[in-house]
């Protein structure tokens, strides 16, 4: 501690990189990192893959110590906590029954309306093997990577709601950017009213909300879910509730990234719902009852992939969402003699 105890020993004529040049190099690293932020990503992924067994081994005892240090206060109110949990459990069972009834009702409505199915979701379950809480970074490391099908951009959820999304995937580990991180910006919808907003992390426990509409009114306690805009994240994932903070609104997150040990990484197996292509009957001319123009003469259809008389193959058309065939009772009966 006593710096004054040592004499300053300087190098004798040894060639050293001058401080000014080192400062210029440091500035260059900042600019290169800004322009090409993936420079260090491969090294980080390799490092986390390499240290994953060590982290897995260290996780058990460290978790025990952490539980012990953070849980001492809980021993004093076990009885009250137990009563509260029983009440919560009874209330949640009522909600579960209501949710099951509503689920069946929604299914019936979807069948009646011939609605497009919701996008199917795949999930990879992963353990949290590391967490990093830095001044400018909030992240966690999972023990699932490319080998398990995890890809950058996918949503990470725990039992309560969304935690963040994958921003770097190694072979057997992946890094999660938490919703509270400075780099996190996700499109959300606020219910009721389906108000579109962007939730931005600012290194505080409650990310801020920036509504996209003019003059929209938010209220404390409104539900925040992912909107699915952009097609990267699934829509409808629970995120949190709205809380006013002075002139701005923030999101009180449902998930707890600090205590979650097992999470799921969600991936969209099928793309989100998109509006089907309009049929000729949906066009304005047909809808207005006007006679359509006579179509130009068309050569008879060729076999799939066959060459046209000019020697060119017809362009292949691939429908993103094939139209559902019309029900049989809706078609006009055909007289066999008219063939």
């Amino acid at each position, binding site marked *: *501690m*006593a*710096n*004054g*105890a*040592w*004499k*300053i*020993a*300087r*190098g*004798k004529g*040894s060639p*050293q*990189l*001058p*401080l000014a040049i*080192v*400062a210029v*190099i*440091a*500035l260059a*690293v*900042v*600019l*290169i*990192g*800004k322009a090409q*932020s993936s*420079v*260090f990503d491969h*090294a*980080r992924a390799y*490092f986390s893959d390499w240290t994953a067994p060590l*982290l897995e081994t*260290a*996780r058990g005892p*460290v978790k025990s*110590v*952490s539980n012990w*240090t*953070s849980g001492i206060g809980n021993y004093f109110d076990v009885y009250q906590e137990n009563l509260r949990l029983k009440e919560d459990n009874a209330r949640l069972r009522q909600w579960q029954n209501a949710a099951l009834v509503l689920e069946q009702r929604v299914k019936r409505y979807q069948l009646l309306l011939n609605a497009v199915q919701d996008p199917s979701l795949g999930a990879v379950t992963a353990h949290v*093997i*590391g*967490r*990093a*809480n*830095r*001044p*400018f*970074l909030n*992240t*966690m*490391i999972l023990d699932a990577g490319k080998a398990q099908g995890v890809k950058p951009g996918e949503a990470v959820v725990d039992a309560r709601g969304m935690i963040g999304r994958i921003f770097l995937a190694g072979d057997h580990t992946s*890094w999660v950017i938490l919703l509270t991180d*400075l780099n996190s910006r996700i499109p959300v919808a606020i219910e009721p009213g389906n108000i579109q907003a962007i939730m931005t992390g*600012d*290194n*505080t426990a409650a990310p801020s909300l920036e509504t996209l509409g003019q003059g929209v009114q938010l209220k404390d306690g409104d539900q925040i879910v992912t909107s699915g805009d952009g097609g990267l994240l699934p829509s409808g994932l629970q995120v949190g509730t709205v809380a006013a903070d002075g002139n701005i609104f923030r999101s009180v997150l449902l998930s707890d990234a*600090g205590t979650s040990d097992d999470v799921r990484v969600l991936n969209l197996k099928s793309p989100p719902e998109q509006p089907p292509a309009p049929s000729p009957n949906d066009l304005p001319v047909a809808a207005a009852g006007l006679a359509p123009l006579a179509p130009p003469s068309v050569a008879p259809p060729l076999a799939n992939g066959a060459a046209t008389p000019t020697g060119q193959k017809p362009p292949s058309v691939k429908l993103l969402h094939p139209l559902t065939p019309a029900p049989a009772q809706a078609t006009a009966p055909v007289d066999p003699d008219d063939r």
Partner: protein
Amino acid sequence: MHDRIGFSIGNVFAAVIPFLCGVIGAFITNIPISIFGNNVVPPLLALMPVYFWCLVRPDLMPPWVALVLGILEDMLSGGQPGVWTAAFVASYALVDQQRESFAGLAGFGAIIGFAAAMFAASATAYVVNDFLYWRILPVSTLIEQFAITILFYIPGAALLNLIHRRLVGPLRSDF
């Protein structure tokens, strides 16, 4: 001849120790495991060897070593590249400019000296991050890290003192 080779190996080993201490500090800081439930920001351990040997043996802690340690800290921390690189170099520059003042400090004064170096690093990191994100960022976590790092410097400096006395040697400036 053997003595000459043995002496050279010893000298090289002694010269590498400050750098190794910085590397170990960077690794310990960035181990993504916390016994405090991730509620406490880890101290910036890699800055301690930079400050310590920049004062007592600047020949063993040249500017490029501070640069390399900053790059390593950036790589391991997972943040924006270049933030801690610039912070370490700025802190080194401050200590290098004020070496005579800092070297005369002892006891509580030495902690104040390190606090000044840590302040330079934190302020640089904050300004660089503000520039990279193009907005004013909250400082609470940075202040927390500042305080915890200074707290950890008290045992850290004692450990570095011990390493310096036993392994490096106070006046080996002729390599």
